């Protein structure tokens, strides 16, 4: 029993390291690939690390109007995202903190971070923060039913909302992701991923001080180390959702355990799959223009329809 606990703790720290270390890289790769596709040179893929380093060394300006919520939010967002990240299978099918929660807990922990970010957007009293909070909560609320339908479809296949069980059920069935239910659910979840991570066509992560911004408006007043925490949390969230998507539907290369040589193979597979998904995101971002805010519900309605189709097709196939 105690040996198992030690194993869990070691696994958790390994995955924790992977999460915090890999997340800025994924953001950097997406940015660079996007620049290349638009025939720009773009920054180095390591630029996000430099940005974080720079921000952590700077001082910060706290708005006079802000309360303790403003100071607590970056931490709550950061810790809840990490905790969610420890509940998903990244390298091994067995999630280190799978006992603490499955896919529902992951979604609700991300929701906790978003709740506080939205509060801090309103805390400063600036109109931009309010705009961002309002839009973020609206879009995430509309994305939720589609996400839940897709997740239910996957969970029904595995008979559990535990991610260890979900990934475990998919292992060994290499071509299962071609089943209609799985493909519909994948498409629905991919659309939700775009909305939740604030990417084009829903939100533009590269925007600043435009009236169309969502996430960036909400965190406009953050600076220095707090901004670094918020940005880091955002890229970890992106990594968590991307890993969730690829490992639920296509668990190729997931290792049974975190230990030994297998872990290296698992990490290589993870990186390869993340790169593939990043390419897809870059492609979507490049060929689409940002939508008007009030067109976003239509996109999410498409995701909901796909989720319903996924559900219905579990009856048929």
């Amino acid at each position, binding site marked *: 029993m105690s040996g198992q606990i030690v194993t869990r703790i070691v696994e958790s720290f390994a995955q924790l390291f992977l999460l915090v270390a890999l997340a800025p890289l994924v953001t950097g790769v997406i940015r660079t690939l996007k620049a290349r596709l638009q025939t720009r040179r773009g920054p180095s893929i390591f630029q996000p690390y430099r940005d974080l380093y720079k921000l952590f060394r700077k001082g910060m300006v706290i708005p006079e109007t802000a309360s303790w919520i403003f*100071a607590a939010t970056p931490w709550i967002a950061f810790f809840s995202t990490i905790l969610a990240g420890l509940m998903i299978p990244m390298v091994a099918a067995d999630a280190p903190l*799978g006992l603490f929660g499955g896919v529902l807990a992951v979604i609700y*922990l991300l929701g906790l971070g978003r709740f506080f970010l939205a509060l801090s957007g309103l805390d400063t009293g600036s109109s931009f923060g309010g705009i961002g909070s*309002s839009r973020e909560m*609206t879009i995430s609320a*509309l994305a939720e039913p589609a996400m839940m339908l897709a997740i239910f479809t996957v969970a029904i296949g595995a*008979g559990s909302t535990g991610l260890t069980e979900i990934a475990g059920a998919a292992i060994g069935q290499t071509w299962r992701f071609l089943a209609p239910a799985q493909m519909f659910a994948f498409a629905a979840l991919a659309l939700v991923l775009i909305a939740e991570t604030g990417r084009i066509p829903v939100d533009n992560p590269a925007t600043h001080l435009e009236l169309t911004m969502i996430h960036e408006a909400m965190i406009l007043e953050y600076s220095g*180390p707090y901004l670094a925490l918020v940005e880091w949390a955002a890229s970890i969230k992106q990594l968590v959702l991307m890993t969730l998507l690829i490992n639920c539907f296509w668990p190729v290369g997931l290792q049974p355990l975190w230990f030994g040589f297998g872990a290296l193979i698992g990490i290589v597979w993870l990186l390869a799959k993340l790169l593939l998904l990043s390419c897809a995101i870059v492609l979507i971002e490049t060929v689409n223009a940002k939508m008007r805010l009030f067109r976003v519900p239509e996109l999410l309605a498409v995701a909901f329809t796909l989720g319903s189709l996924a559900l219905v097709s579990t009856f048929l196939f």
Partner: protein
Amino acid sequence: MISALFLSGIIVWLAGALASLALWRNPAAARRVACGAALAGSLLDLAASAMAIFSGSAVLIDLPSGNPIFSWSIRIDPLSAYFNVTLAVLAAAVSLYSFGYLKEMEGRRNLGAFGFFYNLLLMSLALVFTASNVFFFLVAWEVMALSSFCLIGFEHEKEEARKAGVLFLVMSHAGTGLLLIAFLMLTSASGSLDFTSFHLLASSLSPLQQGAVFLLFLFGFGVKAGLVPVHIWLPDAHPVAPSNVSALMSGIVIKSGIYGMARVFFDFYGPPPLWMGTVVLALGVVSALLGVLYALMEHDLKRLLAWHSIENIGIILMGFGAALIFRSLGQPRLAALALIAGLYHTFNHATFKGLLFLGAGAVVQTTHTRNMEKMGGLIRLMPVTAICFLIGAVAISGLPPLNGFVSEWLTYQALLAGFGTTQSLARLMFPIAGSLLALTAALAAACFVKAFAIPFLALPRSEQSADAREASPTMLAGMAVLAVGCVALGLGATWFVRVFDPITQQTLGVSTSSAMIMARGLALSPGTPHGGTISTFGMAMIFIFAGAAFALPLAWRWKRRSVKGPAWDCGLPGLTADNEYTATAFSKALRLIFSALYRPRREIQAEYEVSPYYPSAIRFESEIEPTFEKHLYAPLRHRIMAAAERMRAIQAGSINAYLAYIFITLILLLLFGVRG
């Protein structure tokens, strides 16, 4: 022992009611006696019902009445005891709060009368949950309704309070009428007025009668619970009552409807036909979604909370509906899971909604307005109230690791388990209900970002808000009790689920808690094979550890490097409260997206002198259409009035005519009796 404790609780409440009425000329004494008796009665009731749950068997108290039909029979079985625990915890916190809250009313209002109805309400609630005789139950039910009515209309000089009180009374009595018919149908089948004789009886009726009884009970109790479409009294009545009463109304009075449904669905009925569960599940989904959608459009803080009560009743009924469906499909263990989800949410809702109403009461008392658009910045002036309200807001949004998350997670698990059944309608309905629950929960989170941020954060939007003062110590203590309750019911989930064993054993014949407690009490599982697990306790420990190890030291270090500066004001001279986002603006996006439901109407009039871009005054008016009032109740009221108009013909005012009516009625009844 249990019966002695329970009866002394009842007696203390009754004595408190009479004593505070007697002391009405001395407001300070009346307040102390009323709140003290209410608190003492609650603690006695808590002790009695907590012991009753764990004793496992029903406690019977039969007092002689000298009348063969009517009997004062009290039966505390685990289900009754559970609702009594909920009542006692909430009532204790609210009574503590009332010590401070009522002080401001001293000399201005009749606190003797208030104390009378307040204690009477608590007593009648305890009796509603335990009465085991139809007559006794209905008497307790009516005392509860009437004392609620008097408390809702307590500030009777306001027209809205009078109107809301009358609407409540009318709806409540319509509901009681339905209950009366249903009880009479059961009584004529069993030949007894005792609840124990109804056990599993309803299932032996003919299918038509069974369905009729079911629907009568569903809507009869649904009126009290605030089930859509018979909910319309609730958003009017809860806000106008004094806030401690609002907390009781939302926390426990509407749960009397839930108790009634649980009693009927799981005690009077055996395995029901499938359609019954389907109806309950569908009504639950509709109530949850409409409740939260209307809450989002509200900027009256207490009305917003009232709409959320409808939402949460919907979530509870989703659990009940799923339990009924599982029961008719012969899956008692899954039914137990769904029932636990519903009952757990019942208790949770009492704690966090009670807490939120008490917090709102503290805010309203000091700012003298319920309009959120006039509040702001209260977190600095009322720090403790703000933290309590925030805990309530996080809990009601279903976010981990607090109690709302646990019960919503159990509801999801119950709905997901429905897919394992073989019935295709159930298989399709459950996941759709689950996805709509997700929408409801996410919209609730959006709504509580608004409900916390607009009153408590940023700059004050009015003078009253800038001069707000922290609530008195007893008020804070009352809120703190419920805040601790929210945390404890969240983190102690694996400890708490044991409470449900006697209830599921009694109603469904299974006990599941041993299957639900995993990893030596660290994690909670739905008890189904392969079901997921959660550990709210583990999550909280990680948050606390990470916070203490990283956040606090680093925040301390960074603090030295931080400076205070103005927020970005777009280059305009200084940020004022006028620049802030309002509650109306916050919900604008959702108002447009769901405009098919809301049918919003807005009117903007701008006055300008030089150019339309520089208005000197703007008048903005925005409202949404109250769908049910307009399309369901307005035509109904119209018909009733028209019918009443025609009935006037027979009311000539002549005594002779009336005597003739009485005579004819008597003859008809005699003929009916002879024939029957």
